[in-house]
């Protein structure tokens, strides 16, 4: 694939699916610097994945898979190297957080952040409306396994929100 064609497809994907990337970034990285770093990592992986896309699944599914894998790998790498990391002062951030504040959404992301890497991926896919079958295909596990995990996640989220409400009262 020629670089121009790859660039055109990449830009089109980024324009159409940037919201999806932002959700993954927010679920896996928490400080502004980490979010910027992860966004760059995901964008690089999406760019690299363009020539491999054969159209045998929806673009959304493809990008989700690439983004989730990049985030999971980044998350592992980041935990190990966090202490050695330094922030370049001359680096200009790529991501600029929106000024809009939604406390309920912040709370939901906080809950998702408490899950392990795999459960976070499953939660994002579920909340974005993917069916069990699609999630199973994206993750490479059985639908029944997805069902078991998602039921547990739903229960945990509902329970956490109940506790939160009780504390508020």
């Amino acid at each position, binding site marked *: 694939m020629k670089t121009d064609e790859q660039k055109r497809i990449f830009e089109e994907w980024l324009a159409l699916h940037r919201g999806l990337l*932002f959700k993954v970034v927010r679920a896996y990285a928490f400080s502004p610097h980490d979010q910027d770093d992860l966004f760059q990592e995901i964008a690089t992986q999406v760019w690299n994945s363009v020539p491999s896309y054969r159209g045998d699944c929806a673009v959304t599914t493809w990008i989700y898979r690439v983004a989730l894998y990049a985030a999971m790998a980044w998350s592992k790498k980041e935990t*190990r190297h966090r202490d050695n990391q330094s922030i370049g002062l001359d680096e200009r951030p*790529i991501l600029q957080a*929106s000024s809009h504040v*939604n406390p309920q*959404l912040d709370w939901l992301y906080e809950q998702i952040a408490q899950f392990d890497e795999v459960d976070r991926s499953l939660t994002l896919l579920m909340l974005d409306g993917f069916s069990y079958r699609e999630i199973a295909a994206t993750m490479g*596990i059985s639908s029944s396994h997805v069902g078991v995990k998602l039921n547990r996640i739903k229960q945990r989220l509902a329970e956490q929100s109940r506790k*939160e409400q009780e504390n508020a009262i």
Partner: protein
Amino acid sequence: MQFEDLQVIWNSQRDRPLYGFDEAGLQQILRGNRQRFQRFLFWQHVQTYGSTLFMLTLIGAILIANFTGVPDKIDSLRALAGWEVVALLVAMVCWLQFSLSVYLGQKMRKRREQSTTHSLREDLDKEICHTMYEIKARRNPLLGFIPPYAGVGLFLLVVFGVTGVSTWLLAFFLVVMVITLVIESRSQRRLAERDMTHRLRDLEILREKLVDPAS
């Protein structure tokens, strides 16, 4: 709050995106990453295939010069003995083996890693497979590096013999080569044992979390 309420909260992101981003800055970073990676690959290939080509050309030129009677015209040189011709041919085979093993290893790895189902688990399996390949290739680096070093050793042995350079100088060069070989294989093994084994363990933990319903 029920799960359906959480879904409504989640969907609110559709109207208000979480971030904005600097598209030109991102493109610049991607271009930089791409160039760095291509440069790295280029230099790896230059080192492996370039050194092989250089050695094969050099040995080939010496053999051709020998068989066309060049040493007879130069007083300080003598014709190659039978065992020296064999030693140079063995050196050529050593270098060819080195380059071919690198080339075929990479080709096999790429074939093994080709996507079929496009799932996260496949990505993990692929990455585990790749990391294991890199660890395996570095676990006994001495064996991998011996052919090119042996090739250079044989080449020096013949060239020093033909040109009549002191045996002590040859011994010095051979000792330096052995030390370099040991240092290089140790650093490769350390890379495999430290960084790559950590990475492999992380990937295996992720895979375990993915496939084990109890986790």
